[in-house]
């Protein structure tokens, strides 16, 4: 049944969570306020240590916030975690597949745990096996599946009882690009056709562009919140591909030191450059050693926006100067002693 409730699926207001171990105090989440819309894929995007897993656990009612309020499907999680848990599916980073049980036995086990009535199982299994492409492998031991297939089985087990909200904690980490593409096809199918709301965490910045909406988190703080297109629109006219006969590593080091350049990374034989402002840099004379430098505009990407935000936070400090040259004296000369 389509979910027509106009209220957001998840509402976070001033969410804060601190962990203490002995004298150490780590602020995992430092006042997060954001929303995730129904029927959409919302990405929790950020590097390791950003607070993504903590936020997932808070939303799932497995942890309590120290401050702030979390509403999931209109329910206050702190007051009624069980009602929330009855309506969500949560796939943690290390999903508990039973490696010495077959694909079919894992599905049965999770159907038992989630209280799915036996008469509803055949149709649901057929749907999930078709969706994940695991149909031909129902008799195979889970421990003998590839990494990508294990992730798909974990997802199928999470979905045996159809949830209103699906929490996926870094499902694509370490899987090959083919399996990653298949996982995204499944997620698209779930949101487009089955009206499931998905909250998806990832440290791969390119995956932000596949989400309907993104929360960019870094070190417990929300650095940005919006459609991925809003992040890239901020960066319009600021990214270029640089080519020159100077070696690409030297070209990168020189470009990184040019004032007004906030980012320079090697991309194949060229160097991708991002500028602080949408003023096209003049290639001629930009790098003294590269008189043949050519700059070609290239579309912005989500990572550009993250880098720009980090640079802005750090006071637009120019990138660190190249490593000081160490005394060169022939073979093995990089040695500093």
């Amino acid at each position, binding site marked *: 049944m389509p979910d027509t409730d106009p209220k957001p699926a998840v509402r976070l207001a001033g969410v804060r969570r601190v962990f203490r171990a002995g004298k150490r105090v780590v602020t995992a989440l430092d006042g997060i306020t954001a929303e995730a819309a129904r029927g959409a894929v919302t990405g929790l995007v*950020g590097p*390791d240590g950003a607070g993504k897993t903590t936020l997932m656990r808070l939303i799932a009612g497995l942890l309590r916030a120290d401050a702030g309020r979390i509403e999931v499907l209109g329910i206050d999680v702190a007051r009624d975690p069980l009602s929330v848990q009855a309506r969500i599916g949560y796939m943690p980073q290390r999903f508990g597949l039973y490696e010495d049980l077959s694909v079919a036995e894992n599905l049965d086990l999770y159907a038992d745990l989630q209280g799915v009535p036996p008469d509803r199982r055949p149709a649901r299994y057929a749907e999930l096996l078709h969706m994940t492409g695991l149909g031909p492998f129902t008799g195979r031991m889970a421990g003998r599946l590839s*990494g990508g297939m294990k992730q798909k089985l974990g997802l199928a087990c999470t979905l045996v009882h159809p949830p209103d909200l699906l929490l996926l904690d870094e499902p694509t980490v370490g899987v090959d*690009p083919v399996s990653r593409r298949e996982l995204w096809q499944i997620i698209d199918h779930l949101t487009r056709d089955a009206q499931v709301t998905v909250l998806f965490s990832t440290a791969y910045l390119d995956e932000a562009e596949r989400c309907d909406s993104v929360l960019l988190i870094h070190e417990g703080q929300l650095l940005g919140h919006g459609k991925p297109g809003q992040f890239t629109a901020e960066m319009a006219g600021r990214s270029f591909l640089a080519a020159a006969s100077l070696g690409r590593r030297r070209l990168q080091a020189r470009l990184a030191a040019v004032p007004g350049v906030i980012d320079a*990374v*090697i991309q194949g034989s060229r160097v991708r450059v991002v500028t602080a402002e949408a003023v096209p840099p003049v290639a001629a004379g930009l790098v003294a050693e590269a008189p043949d430098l050519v700059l070609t505009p290239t579309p912005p990407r989500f990572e550009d926006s993250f880098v720009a935000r980090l640079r802005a936070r750090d006071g637009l400090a120019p990138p660190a100067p190249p490593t000081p040259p160490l005394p060169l004296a022939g073979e*093995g000369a990089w040695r500093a002693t």
Partner: protein
Amino acid sequence: MAGDVIAVAHLTRRFGAFVAVDDVSFTVARGEIFGLLGANGAGKSTTFRMLCGLLPPTSGTLRVAGFDLRGAAASARGRIGYMAQKFSLYGDLSVAQNLRFFSSAYRLTGARQRARVAWAETEFELGPMRDATARDLPLGFKQRLALACALMHEPDILFLDEPTSGVDPLARREFWRRINALAEQGVTVLVTTHFMEEAEYCDRLVIMAQGAVLAAGEPEAIKQGARTATQPDPTMEDAFIAVIEAAQAPAQAA
């Protein structure tokens, strides 16, 4: 080739009936940054452990820094710096204690050890954190400390296992700035990654799946190999997918 620092030929490793690495061959020249690209389970880490002399191959030959790893693993290891996935630091030890421990493990003593610890603290800006416990360091600092530990004995070859998985983009750039500087100075770098962006930084790379090498070459050439009318400017990820699908096609047809 005479300039090759790493030469791997027909390398195979079995665990019972399972073939983790299947007839892999490649060479890496001095000062080159060479990538092993593949998903978890593709055989990258097993290849790596054999190159480090930590695991004997079932068959094939391995030469690292001029030493045959079957006969002289210890000699070869003295020329190798290794940075493990997730940085394998001693969490309960301080920054300074980790540097001293790793330099001792690489057999540095006395004045040379003190000089290298001082070098690491300066070069990697670890001085202000020298008494902090490694476990409490921010991820970017941990990564710098792990690289410093791998470089204490001034190795000719640096092995990096998933070096920047999950770190923020600025820390990743900072890390690669150092790696590029090392390569420019003649250090040979071998890096495993499942991170497509990182593959772009390599001079050459191999794409691995199910223990075998499916494609090898410069990043630009590998990307160009996936060019089609509908995909005129493929990314490394597009190329990876094309390579895997091409490898699976004959198997499915059979």
